[in-house]
């Protein structure tokens, strides 16, 4: 166990817990997750609504200002526990060391200020530079994110940009201080597919150019597969599966991951009669029965063994999941899960 600086992850989240006090009791939106983000690594977090993927990253940055919210655990970023910092100290890191790109580029920008203002403001909040120098850098950044006529467009207002161009402005803002970590929360969900492809390509290019680490939050298995080095699959505020992208996409272990993949129509040109959908609805985070695998209520292989919640087990190097099914039978069981769906369709015909 060498603890040299280079081997240490950039971000080390340990047993993160985010709970909200509500009228009907405490809701654990994030229920004890641990993960790391390496230097220069792209980590994809995938899950459906209510899986806790956004809340976990918002809490890392101290961006949840709900007084009924309790955040516990440790978030070690470059040797500091972010959860122990006060707001002033956090502000030094937010936007400079860790930047965030949100889903909706319209609400992320102030309508009454120009693109250039947004970017210069961010630069000047963290560095002592003149307005003029910040403005010049804003133009360079707009160039870097592929906005044509950057010298003119720097003076445009958010409503004068299209959705894709607006997201480019937001990305330029995020990159303005050369952050070592970029958190992108569904950055392309609000965009058209052809624009999504542009933005993903841009993020890939910028990542290789600037070498930042990226945490990409998305519900889209395809997006996560195209962008990430490593993938976390979340369900009900817990990690269902985590692993290197290729291993996880080729040999997914957890029945929930099977279901997520089976729910997407095949993209290779083949057509199936029915999709291998997951029955039921995503678990409600306020469901009081939490001492079990939360997916067991929708899982075709659920048994008494799913209670209490099975722990995360590493099966192959770096590939772990939280499921009691015997590891060596997973491929066969996955096939079985697929064929069950097919016979169901035959039975109802």
């Amino acid at each position: 166990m060498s603890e040299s600086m280079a081997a240490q992850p950039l971000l080390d989240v340990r047993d993160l817990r985010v709970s909200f006090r509500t009228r009907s009791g405490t809701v654990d939106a994030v229920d004890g997750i641990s993960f790391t983000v390496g230097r220069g690594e792209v980590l994809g977090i995938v899950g459906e609504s209510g899986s806790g993927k956004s809340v976990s990253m918002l809490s890392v940055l101290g961006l949840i200002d709900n007084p009924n919210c309790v955040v516990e655990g440790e978030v070690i970023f470059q040797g500091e526990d972010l959860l122990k910092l006060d707001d002033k100290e956090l502000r030094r890191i937010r936007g400079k060391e860790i930047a965030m790109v949100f889903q909706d580029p319209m609400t992320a920008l102030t309508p009454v200020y120009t693109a250039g203002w947004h970017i210069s403001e961010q630069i000047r909040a963290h560095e002592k530079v003149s307005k003029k120098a910040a403005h010049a850098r804003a133009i360079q950044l707009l160039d870097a994110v592929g906005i044509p006529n950057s010298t003119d467009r720097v003076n445009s207002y958010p409503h004068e940009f299209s959705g894709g161009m607006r997201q480019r402005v937001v990305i330029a803002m995020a990159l303005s201080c050369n952050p070592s970590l970029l958190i992108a929360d569904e950055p392309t969900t609000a965009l058209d597919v052809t624009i999504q492809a542009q933005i993903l390509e841009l993020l890939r290019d910028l990542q290789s150019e600037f070498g930042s680490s990226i945490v990409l939050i998305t519900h889209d298995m395809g997006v996560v597969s195209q962008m990430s080095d490593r993938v976390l699959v979340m369900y009900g505020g817990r990690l269902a599966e985590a692993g290197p992208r290729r291993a996880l996409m080729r040999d997914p272990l957890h029945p929930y991951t099977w279901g997520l993949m089976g729910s997407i129509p095949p993209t290779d040109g083949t057509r199936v009669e029915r999709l291998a959908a997951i029955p039921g609805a995503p678990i409600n985070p306020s469901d009081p029965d939490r001492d079990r695998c939360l997916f067991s209520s929708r899982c075709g292989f659920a048994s008494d063994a799913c209670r209490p919640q099975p722990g995360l087990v590493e099966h192959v190097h770096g590939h772990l999941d939280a499921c009691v099914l015997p590891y060596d039978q997973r491929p066969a069981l996955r096939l079985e899960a697929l064929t069950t769906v097919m016979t169901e369709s035959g039975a109802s015909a």
Partner: protein
Amino acid sequence: MSAASTPSPVEGSATPAPLLLEARGVVKHFPIRTSNGKKIVQAVDGVSLQVRAGETLGLVGESGCGKSTLGRCLVRLIEVTEGQVIFDGTDITSMSRRELRSRRTGFQMIFQDPYASLNPRRRALATVEEPMRTHDMGTEQEIRDRAMHLLEIVGFDPSYADRYPHEFSGGQRQRLGIARALAVTPRLLIADEPVSALDVSIQAQVLNLLADLQRDQALTYVFIAHDLAVVHHIADRIGVMYLGELVEVGDSSPLYNHPAHPYTEALLSSIPVIDDEVEKRDRIVLQGDLPSPIDKPGGCAFAPRCRYSQAICVSDKPVLQLLSDGREVACHFPLVAAATTTLTI
């Protein structure tokens, strides 16, 4: 296996199924006022298409391409500027409001946003009953029984009948919307982005439900979506729209596997794929955005973003031409050979 033995009503049968819906040169223009005076948004600009009974036609395109506007024109939720929509042999664009109302039992619509398209103060059962009352489809008891049956068909327990929309999840609301659309025993359903507001696992459930309903009730669908993979999954034929016009129409699989229009090719290449092998294929990233439908470029509307664009594309507007596999494409340089020789299949 069982799927292969039952031929689809469209492919493989000697006599094609009869036409159920036909659009002839449908145009929808919206006049707007801008700071430079009055202008016209050419939302739908001369679309002709045919839908045969029992088939699913998918309409795909990016936001602003006019696919939803076209969908609304097809059921006359909005009036067309020009052109005709023929449903089951009758022109519905020229009939009176009263006449149209009685014809509406033949075609129904499913909307994208299951939150906005349900009355929040009406219980599930009453929501499904209402269209049957409007069209006077039986006694109170008959209507109630049929509504309960419909709720069951879309997968609800009888105990859900007395719930209000806010007590349902997004996917359940969408299923309620489907039950309501089915209440008047329509032959045609127009589904406008029915799954894009739903979680992935719920999307798959609703797509499966739509497929089951089509098989069991001999329904015809026009399925509008922006996701080419979803459309390819559900549709027998696909129409690709760009800036208010159809640029490619054809059977689902050939269109998906060998796109003929450069825009279809680009749309296809934009789909993020999971499989590593497919990932190696050439990625085409379109430059720029969809042009405004207010000042449409002359010539081919796609030319400014097209990687094959030549001088003729800017000057001359391509019209839909037939390809050797029966597809139609509006392009001067289609990626699949045009129908100059006879079919050999």
